[in-house]
Structure formats: C-alpha cells, structure tokens
C-alpha cells in the first residue's frame, strides 16, 4: 500500500452557475502522505472547500483521478462511495453539523453504527472518545445544550471514533472565539498525534496553519505552492 493517503492527478471541477461555467478546481495534482497534519490554504473562493469535498468523496471531479487510501474513488457507485466514506473518512464541519435530535454520546456513536461495529465495541469506543475530548459529563446533552466549543469537540470525537484513514476539516475554528479555537486546535493536534490519522484542513486560521506539517496553497483553483513545515 502506498504511503500516500491522498493522490490527485490533474483533477478539475467545474460548476454551472446560471449561464456561467465556473472552474473551481483547475488541474490540481498533489499527494498527501499518511499521518500528517495538512493544511489547504488560500483566499476565499480559491477552491479550498471544493478540493476538500473532492478528497472527502462528497463531490465528484469533472475530470482527473482521485485516489484515497489506495482506492480510485472516481469510478465507484454512489452506494460504494457512501460505504467508503463511512469506513475511511471523518468530517469536521465549520458549523459543527451535529444531529440535533441525538445526544453527544449518540452523535459520536452514529458513525460506528454505519460500519456495523458491535454494541459492546461501540459503547467502549464512544465512551473513550467522550473522555478523550473531555465531554464525559455532557454525554447525555443534546447539541442545543452544548457550547460552540463543546459541539466542535463532539464533532471531532465523531470524526475520529471510527479510526478513519483521513479526517477532513473545513474551517473548523471559524465559528469559535479565539480562545476556544486555540483549545480545539490543540485538541485536534493531540488527537492526530495519538491516532496517527491524516488530518486535512481548509482554513484561514493562522494559528491553525502554524501547526501544519504540510501546506498546500491554492489560488483560482490552481495549486500554486506546496510547502513542508
């Protein structure tokens, strides 16, 4: 198996917005090694989120090859891609995107149900993740009863509980105050170190960028710089 967990080859993504065709990603080729804290940076509208979506298999490229964790995902059926995401990819969203009718515990447990983990193992893993993010006391609380920072901790725990190959985070600190954002960054860094999972961020946050092992800078849908910290 390749040590490159993400490999993009000449990937493009075009959108039709009204009569206009928008080229969100223009022929990007890049590789991301496993177990790295990787940043995708660039100005607003540069194509960061689109690139993250392509890596996360929640969007399909217009052309090019996308290989995630050694698998060419471009030719998989929708169901197969769903199963692949359930097993290999964790997401942390800017707006947390927790399921509002589920408690913190149930939100974290949710991805394990999709991969058929036994009830006993689910319970063990979920409680361990709750403890790791410091929310054991809040496990029965629903998202509307949690602070922004607590919600993002739940989101991090949910992304990591299934031990995915990649965790993708789109502006994970954008909705948090600087102090909470810093604590979330520290938590993600610690979790990444412990779990040895590849984290890929799209962010403007300088504090977050300062923790990156590798930084890809894109502008106008093109990769203009790749730097290793």
């Amino acid at each position, binding site marked *: 198996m390749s040590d490159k967990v993400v490999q993009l080859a000449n990937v493009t993504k075009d959108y039709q917005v009204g009569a206009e065709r928008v080229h969100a990603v223009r022929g990007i080729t890049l590789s991301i090694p496993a177990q790295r804290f990787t940043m995708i940076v660039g100005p607003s509208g540069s194509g960061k989120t689109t690139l993250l979506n392509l890596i996360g298999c929640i969007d399909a490229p217009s052309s090019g090859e996308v290989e995630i964790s050694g698998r060419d995902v471009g030719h998989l059926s929708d169901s197969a891609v*769903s199963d692949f995401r359930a097993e290999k990819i964790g997401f942390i969203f800017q707006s947390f995107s927790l*399921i509002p*009718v589920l408690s913190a515990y149930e939100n974290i447990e949710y991805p394990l149900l999709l*991969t058929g983990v036994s009830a006993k193992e689910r319970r063990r893993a979920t409680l361990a993740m709750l403890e790791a993010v410091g929310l054991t006391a809040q496990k029965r609380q629903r998202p509307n009863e949690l602070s922004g920072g607590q919600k993002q901790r739940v989101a991090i725990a949910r992304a990591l509980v299934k031990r995915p190959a990649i965790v993708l985070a789109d502006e994970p600190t954008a909705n948090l105050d600087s102090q909470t954002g810093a604590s979330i960054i520290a938590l993600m860094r610690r979790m990444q170190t412990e779990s040895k999972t590849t984290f890929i961020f799209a962010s403007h946050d300088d504090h977050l960028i300062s923790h990156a092992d590798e930084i890809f800078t894109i502008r106008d849908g093109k990769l203009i710089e790749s730097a290793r910290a």
Partner: protein
Amino acid sequence: MMLFKVASRSIFRNTRRSLTTMLTIAIGTAATLIFGAYATFTFLGIETSSVQRFGHLTVYRDGYFDFGSGNPAIWGIPQYKTVLRDITTDPVLSRLMVIATPIQSLAGIVESSQSNESRTFLGTGFVPADRERMKQWNEHGTASRGENGPAFDPSNPSEGILGLGLARILGLCAPLKLGNCPKLPAGAPSDGAVSTDVAGLPAQNFSDLVSRDAPSGLVRAHDYPRVDLLAATAGGAPNVVSLQVRQAEAQGVRELDDVYVGMQLPLAQQLVYGRGEHRVTGIVIQLHRTEDMNAARERLAAIFASHHLALEVRDFAELNPFYTQVVNLFSGIFSFISVIIGVVILFTVSNAMGMSVIERTDEIGTTRALGVRRSGIRGQFLLEGAMLGVLGATIGVILALIAAYFVNRAGISYVPPAQAEPVPLRLYMFGAPLRIAEVWLTLTVVATLAALLPANRAAKLQIVDALRHV
C-alpha cells in the same frame, strides 16, 4: 435502532406540525371506522331482517323466480312434504339449518266486511310457529326485529295478519286499536263498496261467497275483525276465504305495507288450491350462519339432482334486491369517504414531510457525508411517515372505539332502511377487528407512501448542496 431513534425524535422536532398531521390521520381513521361500523350495522340489520323474513334460501319450482310470481298458484311444488322431509332429514343440511318451512305466495283482492273497502293484496301463507322461530334469528346481535307476531290459535287456521297500511286502507284502525292511525280527511272521495277492483264479479258481498264455499269448521266466529280474500285457484276458478285479523304489522316498505296479508298455510292453500292437491310455492330454509349459505345451496342442488326434482334455490339477497342495493350504496359511500380521507392524509403527510426535508437539508448532507446511503435517507423519511401514520391511526382507532362505546350505550334508536321497527343504533365496531386492522393498516400505508416523494427528494440531494443549505 439509531434510524428508529432519529425518526421518532425528528417527528416531534416540530411538535405543532406533527400533532396537526397526526390529528388529521386520527380524525380520518376515526371517521372511516365509525362510518364503516354504521354501514356494517346497517348491512347486518338488513341481512337479519331479510333472513328472519325470507330465510337464507328458498326452494322454488324451477322457473318460478323468473316467471311464476304473476300466478303463484300454478307454480306450486307437488308433493312438497316429501321434498321437505328430504331436506330436513339430510345429515349435512340438518347440521346447518335452523328450520325448513313451507310457504305459499298468493295474490287477490281483499275486502273488509265492516267498512266495505277493498283492494288488491299480496299474501303469504306460513306456519306460524316456524315464522316465530325464524324471527328469533339474530346471528350478528343486531336485533333488527324485536317484536313477535301474534300467537295464532293453532285450532283456528283463519287467523292472520295485515300490513299496517292495508289495515288502514281497509278502515280497520279502530277495530285493531292501531295507534298513530291518521283520520280520513273530511270530504275524501269514497267509492262505496267493491265497485272498481271487482267490477266484473257478480254483484254480491264476498261474505256470502265465503259462507257458501267455506268448509265446515274452517271459519269460526270471533271478536277479531274479519276480512274476505278473493283469489283465483290453480285451476282458474275464483275462490274466497275469510281471514280473522289478529294484528296489523308494519312491513318496512310502504308498497308492501299497503298490500300485505299474512295467513296460516292451510288457509292460503285452501284459497289457492281449493279441494285439489295442496302444494306450496316455496320451502324456506334458515341456517344458523350466513356463511354456510353456499354449502347449503350446493347440498340442496345435490339432493334435487339425485331425486330428479326440477327445483331451484334462491338466496335472500336475490329475493330482497334492496339488501344488495343498500350494500352497494353504503359500500360506494364508504369507498368514496375512504378515498377522500386517504387523499387528505396523503397531502397532509406529504406536506409535513416536505417541510421537514427542507428544514433538515443540512442534516441530510451531514449524514450522507458520514456514510449514510441514499437508501438510508429515503428509509429514514419513509419511517417517519410510517410513524406518523402509526401514531395517528392508532389514536384514530382509540377515538373510534371510545365513540362506539358511548354511542352504543346512548340508547339512540332509529328505523334502518327497509325495516319497520326502530332499533337501537349501534356502531358495529367491536365485532369487526379485521376492519379496524384493515383501516389502520391502509391509512398507515397511505401515510408512508405520502412520505415517498419527500423521501426521494431528500435521498437525491447532492451532499455539497445540502451542506451549503442555510
């Protein structure tokens, strides 16, 4: 389990909308069940009334049903007692039957010797004890005819009954002590004695003929009012007998009520067959259970075939087309109401689920990103529709049962279609668990299907578009 958890909690996320939707389903379910219970009670009431009156099956001479009613005298079953014995001694039929009894249909002219009023009549001759026994039939507990007829004097075959309308027409309200009998308006036209109906007959009172023709001992003097019946015998000769009217009985249908004469079989046979062989037009068979009707019919056909008897069998629905008409009418109304309620529920649930999909677009994107397949999203919204249906229909069933409980104990009475006596209004709910299950299941399925369109829309959402949704 998580799917169920998410669905059950999601339907109460917008409590007011969900309650409104469930209430719509509940009211629809309750309305359907209550009307169904009323319709079933009506069907069973008419069935009971018909079976009490006509039995389940009637054996006729082959062709009578289509051609014989105009002149029943010539369509009599010869040696009917042998046929009756073959039926009553058959081991299969005797197990299914309550009773088999002969009847004689006839038509003629009736005249009241007291008022000198006359008119045509349709009559039936029956065995009084058998008739009373048939009236006890009440398989469904609808008790549509609670009133027993008069206890005829077995030694006096001249005793009989008239339809209430006929008694009124013949001016027998006072002699029969009939209540609610309207008075003849002042200045009403009067044609005197028998003039038009029997204009061709010799100008003499029927009573004279009765006294001349009646066999000794058949007619006895009594306090009951008397009417005279004129009919043609099987041989075509006019014949007259006297009937002592014990009682007037409402017949339910006005047309019958104004012409009906019920009499004991020997008198009817005396009138129709005179001194010839006494036959009957039919043998009425009443069964313990209506569902045995086909089995009994098949058995009768086998008996008739083995004895080379040219007889036909008709059931109560054929003899009383009103039963089928009412069943068809109520079934049609029930179907119409059910469809309307189904459509209302369809649109209500579809609208509620559509709103839910819009409100939860971001959540749909998130769960899809986490790895839930399109089918999972579709399943979740279908499950939510089904749960709304289950809850709403269950509440509806409970409401309907409560309504039925109170209505059945409220002491409301009414006169059902084609019946003469008021009966307690009952909603036939508790005896029809299958219909409750059918309505519950149907409306739950409708609610589930109503969620299909929004569920498909949710399943087809592009993840990135859903995640961008605000």
